[in-house]
Every structure is written in structure tokens, then in C-alpha cells.
């Protein structure tokens, strides 16, 4: 049916004006939304304060609820362990006996490694743990993949810090509130992480796809063949992610690019460890000055040595 020509709600002036005004306000609201959208396209963290205020309120609720859910989910497992405790005990004893020789070998190798590193004057890049927290909720209805971490500025978390779980890399912090932080997960379509292959050190980028996988894209000039099962770890290039943290395992064969499954699956996130950036950000003077900041670190995890440490003072 054709729309009626007269759209007035009645003879009441007041009703007519109220309706007119409500439409004006609605159009104004849509326009304000469009302006906010444009602003957040150009400067994504522009409204971090609003979002972190909301997550400050919701994170304790999510945290409490997730504790309850974890408790309930642990019940079948706890019951099951009582039934298979004897068999497990035997299996573990056998495994201890089996791996004893390998353990001794590994201890010797660790000591050797430390001695050789000392000879080379390499300093171990130990990632400094800032906070250990949990991912309490995520943006499950949006195509972006963010997680809410229940630790924030008061716990020392800052934007840019990498977050890893017990299984592998989770992502990095992008916004912080007093007690919560927003984590860009590695599977987000805008996340890119420099990685290298275990074994031959093939450099690549792990770019999130948005469907729970990451794309491994080779950055080498040669024709890189990616095989299913290839494992990739962070390379430390860029100075953000500590080298050697597991990222993803290739799913299907491909040349130069292949889909891969991240080791840290979002839905079984256990603890999340926030660590300081692998290399400290360059000082302000270096950024504003003409000299570019130091080049990306090589594959060997070498931490830049501050001038005051004894390693750089001339030996007598």
C-alpha cells in the first residue's frame, strides 16, 4: 500500500512537535554516531576511557562468574581422577624412569649453554613478568577479537605489552584501565605478529584471520614451502614479543602463505601472563631526532645492555 500523505499523529500541536523533535534527535544521534565512527577509524584508542570504564564495572562480574563456571567444569575431572589414580600412578612412574636419562642430558646441556653464553658475553633476555591474570570475557558478538584481562594500570600493565598463556602467545595489550585491560588476541583480523619457523628460522608474519586461525605469511624472498605441522615461534623482531614463544602450527600445506592453528586457543584460556616488551621503547629524543632507532634485533635474543652495566665497562 502506498504510504499515506499525511503523517501527522493527530490534531494536537504538542504531539506533532514532540514527534518532529524526536526524529530530529534521532537523526542527530545517528550523525554523532557517524562522527564517532570516523574519529575512531583515524584514532582507534580515542574512546578507550569509555570502554575501560564499562569493563571496570563488568570485569568483576565476569571474573566471579568465570570462577563459578570453572568450579563446576572441574567437577567431572576431579571425579574422574579418583577412578584412574592407580593406573596414572604406574604410568607416571614408568615415565619418570624413561625420561631420567634425557633429563640428566638436558641438565648438562643447560649448564653447557650457560657457560658458552657467558663466554660470548650474551645476556639472557628474560621476559620480566608484569602481572598474571585471567581473560575474563571477550567480544563474542563482534567480528573483532578482544579479550578483557582482569589486571590493569594499577598492576603495572601498559598498552603494548605482550600477553602469553601456558600454551603459547595470546596477544598484546592495547588499552588499559585501572584494573582491567583490553587484549588484542592473535586471531583478531588486525593482529600481525613477527614469527619464525622452528628448525630453519624461516621468517614470517602471523596475521589473524578472524575465524580462529592465523595466516602464516612468509616474508623471505625465496619460495617458502609451508608444510602441515610446521611450528612457528615469535622472532622478537620489532622488539615487542619475547623470542621463542609458541604461536601457531600450520594446518594445510601452502607456498608463501598457509593457515595455521594458534597454540593458545581462546576458549580454553587459563592464566594469562603479561610481560614487559622485549625491548624497551626508544627514548623520546631518539624518536624526534634525525637518527632512526636501533635496528631490529637478530634472531639471537640479545638484550641491549644499558651503559651503566659492568658488561660494557672496559675490563682492566
Amino acid at each position, binding site marked *: *500500500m*502506498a*504510504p*499515506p500523505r499525511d*503523517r501527522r499523529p493527530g490534531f494536537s500541536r504538542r504531539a506533532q512537535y514532540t514527534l518532529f523533535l*524526536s*526524529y530530529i*534527535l*534521532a*537523526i542527530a*544521534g*545517528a550523525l*554523532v*554516531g*557517524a562522527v*564517532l*565512527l570516523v*574519529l*575512531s577509524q583515524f584514532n*582507534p584508542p*580515542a*574512546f578507550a576511557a*569509555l*570502554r575501560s*570504564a*564499562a*569493563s571496570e564495572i*563488568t*570485569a568483576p*562480574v*565476569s*571474573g566471579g*562468574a*568465570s570462577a563459578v*563456571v570453572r568450579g563446576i567444569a572441574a567437577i567431572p575431572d576431579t571425579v574422574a581422577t579418583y577412578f584412574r589414580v592407580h593406573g596414572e600412578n604406574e604410568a607416571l612412574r614408568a615415565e619418570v624412569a624413561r625420561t631420567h636419562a634425557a633429563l640428566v642430558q638436558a641438565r648438562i646441556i643447560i649448564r653447557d649453554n650457560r657457560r658458552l653464553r657467558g663466554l660470548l658475553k650474551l645476556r639472557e633476555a628474560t621476559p620480566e613478568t608484569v602481572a598474571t591474570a585471567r*581473560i*575474563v*570475557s*571477550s*567480544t*563474542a*558478538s*563482534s*567480528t*573483532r*577479537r*578482544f*579479550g578483557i584481562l582482569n589486571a590493569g594500570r594499577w598492576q603495572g600493565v601498559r598498552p603494548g605489552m605482550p600477553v602469553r598463556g601456558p600454551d603459547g602467545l595470546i596477544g598484546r595489550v592495547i588499552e588499559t584501565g585501572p584494573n582491567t585491560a583490553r587484549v588484542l588476541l592473535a*586471531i583478531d*583480523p*588486525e593482529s600481525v605478529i613477527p614469527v619464525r619457523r622452528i628448525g630453519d628460522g624461516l621468517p614470517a608474519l602471523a596475521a589473524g*584471520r*578472524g*575465524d*580462529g*586461525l592465523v595466516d602464516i605469511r612468509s616474508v623471505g624472498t625465496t619460495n617458502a614451502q609451508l608444510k602441515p605441522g610446521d611450528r612457528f615461534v615469535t622472532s622478537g623482531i620489532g622488539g615487542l614479543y619475547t623470542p621463542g614463544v609458541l604461536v601457531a602450527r600450520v594446518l594445510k600445506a601452502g607456498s608463501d602463505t598457509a593457515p595455521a592453528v594458534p597454540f593458545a*586457543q*581462546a*576458549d580454553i*584460556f587459563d592464566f594469562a601472563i603479561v610481560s614487559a616488551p622485549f625491548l624497551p621503547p626508544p627514548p623520546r629524543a631518539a624518536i624526534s631526532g634525525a637518527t632512526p632507532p636501533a635496528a631490529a634485533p637478530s634472531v639471537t635474543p640479545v638484550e641491549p645492555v644499558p651503559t651503566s652495566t659492568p658488561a660494557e665497562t672496559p675490563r682492566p
Partner: protein
Amino acid sequence: MPTLKPFEAPLQQSPARALPWVTVMAGSLMTIAPVAATLPLLPPFGLLMLLAWRLLAPLALRRWAPALLGLFDDCLSGQPMGSAMMLWTLSFFLIDLFDQRTIFRDFKQDWLIAAVAIAFSLVAGRLLASPIGGHVDSLLLAQIAVSVLLFPFAARVVAWVDRRRIAA
């Protein structure tokens, strides 16, 4: 079931005015569920409640309400700020267009209109939030399907709340 009498000034109490807002905000708060989801399959419950209010009780929410409710949703959903603000208001205008051309509707037609509005909001939200190259489109279709199938549930909830709202 309580009914409104003619010439009776209804809904003067502020709780009755606030109830639609509260239910839509409760829908937006579904994202705080303690699940770190790998896949974006959770339906936008805030939008579902908003559309159900708009289609079942058209005068319950003012025309400018979706802008403010969308701002609240943007703070929680992870979409760029302003996207729900704009898209939810545009969905209201879209339903206004349908309202002008249909006089009598049954629930199936309402459902169809809600499906169009849901698909519009989700597809536009995806285009605004994620890069074009992202592999999220098949998941987006699944999310739209789940959301459309859940609309009758949202309509049930809204009808239930609305009955009590009028009785109050």
C-alpha cells in the same frame, strides 16, 4: 491479562518507562559472559531486544533511544565507537519505512522485518569493524542465522516484560 482502558493516562510511572531501556541494556551486557570466544557467534542480544520492542510495542522507546542504547552497546561490544549508535538508529528508520507501507502485520512479517534489520546491522558492523580481507564472512552468515532464529525468543521476553509493565 490487564488491558488499557481508553482515556486512561497510562505509564506515568518511571519504572514502566525505564523497563525497555533496562531490557535492551541487559541484552547488550550478554557479552560479559565469562567465555573467551574463538568465533564471533554470539547474537547481538541488545539489538534483538531493541528490535523486539520496536516491533511489538512501537511507542515504548522514543526515536532517539537507539542512539543512546547503541552508545552503551559500543562500550561493551568491541565494535568501533559509534557503529551501533548509527546502525541501530538507521534500523529504526528502516522499520519506519515498513510501518508506512503496511497497516496490518502478523508476527511472521515482523520476524521478516527484524531479519532484514539484523542482517543490515551485522553486515554493516562487520564492514565498519574488520578489514575487507578478514575471513569472517561465513561466520557472519552463521551469526546472522542464529540471531534471526533467536528473534522469536527475544519477542517472547519483550512480550512478557511488556505485559507486566502495563500491569504495574
